[in-house]
């Protein structure tokens, strides 16, 4: 292929590429609207979770107090349970506050 033919070929290829629409490739990634989760829904779900947690904790505490005849051990376990649970609840609350303020 001589130089002139090569140049013509390059111009032809360039013309094809520039005329093609590649927007479908990037368009799907960048132009799709972000999913918006209303924070009220998240807070309502969180409230239900907390309610379920309180009910289950009350049931557990009832069993420990009524049937666990060694109070020292049940107190220790109760403390560990509450510390762990409150850690998760506090982190979840902070994360939800962070999400709500980021909207």
């Amino acid at each position, binding site marked *: 292929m001589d130089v002139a033919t090569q140049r013509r070929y390059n111009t032809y290829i360039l013309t094809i590429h520039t005329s093609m629409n590649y927007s479908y490739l990037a368009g799907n990634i960048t132009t799709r609207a972000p*999913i918006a989760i209303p924070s009220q829904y*998240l807070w309502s779900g969180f409230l239900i979770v907390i309610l379920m947690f309180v009910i289950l904790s009350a049931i557990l505490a009832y069993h420990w107090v009524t049937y666990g005849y060694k109070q020292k051990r049940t107190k220790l376990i109760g403390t560990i349970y509450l510390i762990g649970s409150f850690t998760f609840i506090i982190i*979840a609350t902070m994360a939800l506050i*962070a999400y709500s303020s980021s909207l």
Partner: protein
Amino acid sequence: MIKLDKDEKILLEIRKHWFILLTETFFLLFLAAIPFVLFTGVSLTHVLRFITVEGSGTSIFVALSCIWLLFVWLTFFVIWTDYYLDILIITSKKVIDIEQKGLFYRDVSTFRLDKIQDITVKVSGLIPTMLHFGNLYIQTASEEQSFAAIGIPHPDRIKWQIQDAQNNEVDALREMWMKGR
């Protein structure tokens, strides 16, 4: 709560072997690992790059993970409560078998030591043999009553301790009867 007579002492409190608790709670480790595995997987493979969330997506992920972990934590304590309240108590006068199944089923059976007719120990399998735990079956004079303590540590030792306590109780009863005559 357990009520004892004035001169009655608790000789043994037998719960299931720790290995039983471990096997019952082992799946929780996998459940607890799910958020971390998901987070690492998504970060490494970018499978969710097509999904964008308005606001801080990481915050939602952290909140959902914490709620998930809270329920895993709670499930562990439900299983632990079941384990802790399921107990066989041997006193100087009687055997108290407390069976806790879940949170809403509880069965308490009591029988006197002198009513015990036969105690059978069964250890089967490699792990129970290595870790010294097994089953203990107590047959009483009453035909319907037989008790099974499943997965208790050192069942042989417990069997001998119950038999010793039984002998002492029978001796004490015999002595009382002799005095009475």
